[in-house]
C-alpha cells in the first residue's frame, strides 16, 4: 500500500466515501478535544497563568505522537512524504497572524476548534466565540485586498521543514523535538506544583513508561532512516496538461497526463532549447537561474552571462539554498557541456523537491552552436570527449564572448516549443487549517 490514498486526498462528490472519511476524522478530533477538557475556556486560559498546563501537555503529546508515527511510516516507505501537505512557510504573515491569534486566545479563551467542542456541548461562551470567529473571518476576507501583495509574497519560503533549516537528518530532529517535549512536560508539572498547588505524587506512574516508549520510537525513526534520493526519485510524478482547441463555441478539451521522472526525461519534456533558455531572461512571468554544473575550469573558459557555477559533485550542498529561493516563479536551468552531468543534477534536484528545474538541451555546446557561429574566436574542437567542451579556447574569458549574452534585438524573434510550465506554489489559501 502506498499512503496517502490518492482517492482520499480531496473530497469529491464522485466518491461520497471521502466525506465519510473526513467526517470521521473530524469526529475523532472533536471527541479527543472535548475529552481532554478543551471545551472549557477556564481550563484553556489556565495555561497562561501556569495553574493548569493541560493545553501544552495535550498539544505536544499529540504532536510528538503523530510525528514519530508519521516519520516512522515515511521511513518504512509506507507513506510518501512528498504527497503530505506541509504548510508552506510565509514568515511575515505567519508571525503577525500568530501574534494576533495569541491575543484572541487569551481574550476569548478558545481556539477555533476548541470553540466547536465547547459550543456543541452547550457552552454559551463557546457559541459566542464561534460567532465572533465568523465575523473575524469575514473581516479578513474583506480587508485582505489592502495587503494582498505582502500577504502572498512577504517572507515566502515555500515548503521548508526544520531538518532543512538546521541541516540535520529528519530522525535527529524528531528525537530533539521529543526530548524538548519531555523536558516541557517535566517543566509544566513543576509549574503546576508551584502555581497550581497540584500534588504530583497522585500523577499516574504510567506516564514515565509512556515517555520511555516515545523515546524508543524516536530512536527507531533515526534507526530506520528516511528514504534516500533514489527512492524519492522513483516515486516522483509530474503532470502536464494539453489543451486541444475545439470549434468555436465549444469548450476546449484539456487532457492531463501524469509522468514519472524518467518519462519526463525520455519524452524530453524537461529539456529547453537554447532559444527558450535565452528568452526566459526576457520573460516577465519567470525568473530564470542558470545553474552551470561544469568544473570551474570549464566555467572560466566559457559560460553564459549570469550563470552560477556549482559543480555537479557539490550540488547537494546548495539544495537548501535553492529550496528557499524566495520568488515563486524561479526557474532553474541546469547545464553541462552536453547533457550527462546536467541530467544527473536534474535528478538530484527534483528528488529533493526543488520546483521548476529544467535542462539546457545539448548543454553549453549546443548554446555555442546556436548563438556562437559569428563568434570568431571560437573554434570547434575536433574530438571532444563525452560531456566535454566541443570548442577550443585560447584564453579563459568567461562570459566575455559575444554569444555569452546574445543581443536581445538581434534574436528578438526566436521560435521554440515552450517546455517550461511554471509550477506555482501549492497555494491552498483555504487549505491546511484554512
Amino acid at each position: 500500500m502506498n499512503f496517502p490514498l490518492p482517492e482520499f486526498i480531496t473530497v469529491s462528490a464522485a466518491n461520497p466515501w471521502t466525506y465519510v472519511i473526513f467526517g470521521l476524522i473530524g469526529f475523532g478530533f472533536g471527541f479527543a478535544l472535548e475529552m481532554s477538557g478543551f471545551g472549557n475556556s477556564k481550563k484553556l486560559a489556565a495555561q497562561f497563568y501556569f495553574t493548569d498546563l493541560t493545553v501544552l501537555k495535550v498539544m505536544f503529546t499529540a504532536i510528538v505522537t503523530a510525528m514519530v508515527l508519521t516519520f516512522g511510516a515515511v521511513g518504512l516507505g509506507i507513506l510518501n512524504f512528498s504527497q503530505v501537505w506541509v504548510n508552506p512557510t510565509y514568515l511575515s504573515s505567519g508571525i503577525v497572524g500568530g501574534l494576533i491569534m495569541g491575543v484572541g486566545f487569551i481574550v476569548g479563551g478558545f481556539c477555533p476548534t476548541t470553540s466547536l467542542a465547547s459550543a456543541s456541548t452547550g457552552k454559551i461562551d463557546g457559541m459566542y466565540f464561534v460567532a465572533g470567529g465568523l465575523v473575524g473571518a469575514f473581516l479578513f476576507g474583506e480587508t485582505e485586498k489592502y495587503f494582498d501583495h505582502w500577504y502572498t509574497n512577504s517572507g515566502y519560503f515555500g515548503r521548508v521543514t526544520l531538518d532543512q533549516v538546521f541541516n540535520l537528518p529528519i530522525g535527529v530532529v524528531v528525537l530533539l523535538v521529543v526530548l524538548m517535549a519531555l523536558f516541557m512536560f517535566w517543566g509544566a508539572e513543576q509549574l503546576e506544583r508551584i502555581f497550581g498547588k497540584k500534588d504530583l505524587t497522585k500523577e499516574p506512574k504510567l506516564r514515565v513508561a509512556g515517555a520511555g516508549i516515545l523515546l524508543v520510537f524516536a530512536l527507531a525513526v533515526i534507526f530506520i532512516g528516511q528514504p534516500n534520493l533514489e527512492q524519492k526519485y522513483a516515486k516522483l510524478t509530474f503532470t502536464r496538461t494539453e489543451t486541444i482547441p475545439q470549434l468555436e463555441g465549444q469548450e476546449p478539451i484539456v487532457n492531463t497526463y501524469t509522468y514519472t521522472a524518467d518519462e519526463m526525461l525520455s519524452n524530453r519534456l524537461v529539456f529547453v532549447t537554447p532559444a527558450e533558455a535565452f528568452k526566459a531572461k526576457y520573460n516577465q512571468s519567470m525568473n530564470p537561474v542558470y545553474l552551470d554544473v561544469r568544473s570551474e575550469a570549464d566555467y572560466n573558459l566559457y559560460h553564459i552571462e549570469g550563470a552560477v557555477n556549482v559543480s555537479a559533485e557539490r550540488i547537494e550542498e546548495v539544495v537548501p539554498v535553492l529550496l528557499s529561493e524566495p520568488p515563486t516563479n524561479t526557474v532553474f536551468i541546469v547545464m553541462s557541456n552536453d547533457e550527462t552531468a546536467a541530467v544527473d543534477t536534474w535528478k538530484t534536484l527534483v528528488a529533493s523537491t526543488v520546483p521548476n528545474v529544467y535542462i539546457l538541451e545539448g548543454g553549453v555546446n549546443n548554446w555555442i552552436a546556436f548563438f556562437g557561429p559569428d563568434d570568431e574566436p571560437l573554434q570547434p574542437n575536433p574530438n571532444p570527449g563525452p560531456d566535454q567542451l566541443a570548442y577550443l579556447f585560447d584564453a579563459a574569458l568567461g562570459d566575455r564572448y559575444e554569444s555569452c549574452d546574445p543581443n536581445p534585438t538581434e534574436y528578438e524573434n526566436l521560435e521554440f516549443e515552450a517546455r517550461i510550465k511554471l509550477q506555482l506554489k501549492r497555494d491552498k489559501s483555504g487549505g491546511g487549517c484554512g
Partner: protein
Amino acid sequence: MMTTAPATRKSLFNRPERPYVHPYFGGMILGIILFLAILLTGNGLGSSGGTTRLVTFVEDQIAPAHVDRTPYLLKLAGGDKNPLDDWIIPVFFGALLGGFTSGTIFGRTKLETTRGPNVSDRTRWLMAFLGGMIFLYGARMARGCTSGQALTGGTTLAAGSWVIMLCIFASAYAVAYFVRKFWN
C-alpha cells in the same frame, strides 16, 4: 482547577458529569487521529478554514459579484466554485458532532458559561465574541490556526508552523497579565 457548573443546570440526558481524561492520554489519542488523517488523506487537521468557507459561502449567495472582485474570496468562491467543496467542511462538522458526543457521554453537555469567578456571564460572552473575532482574523492571516498550523504543521516539521506556534504562545503569555481579572 476544574469548573463546577451551577448545580441548578442538569446535563443533557441527566448523565453524571465525569472528569476529563488525563492530558497525556488525551494527547496521545489526538496524536493518533492526527497521524491517521495524515496517513490516509495527506492532509492534517483544521477548522478555521471551515469558518472562512462558511462565511464565504453566505457572501457568495448574497453578493456573488462582490466575491468575484475580492482577491481573497475569489480564490475560494470565484465564478461557479463552491467554497464548501473542501475536505475541511466535513472535518468541521465532524468536530462539532464529536465534541457533542463526548460531552454528552461524559455528562458535560449542558447550557452554561465557562468563565472566571469575577466576571459576569455577559462580560464573558463579549470577551468570547471579541476573542473569536481576533483569533479568526489572525488565523486567516497565518493561513491556519492552532490545529492547521501548530498541530499539523508541528507534526510535519513545517518551519513556518513552528514559528507561528511560538508566536501564539508568546503573545498569549504576554497579554495574559493584562486580562488576568477576566480569568482569576
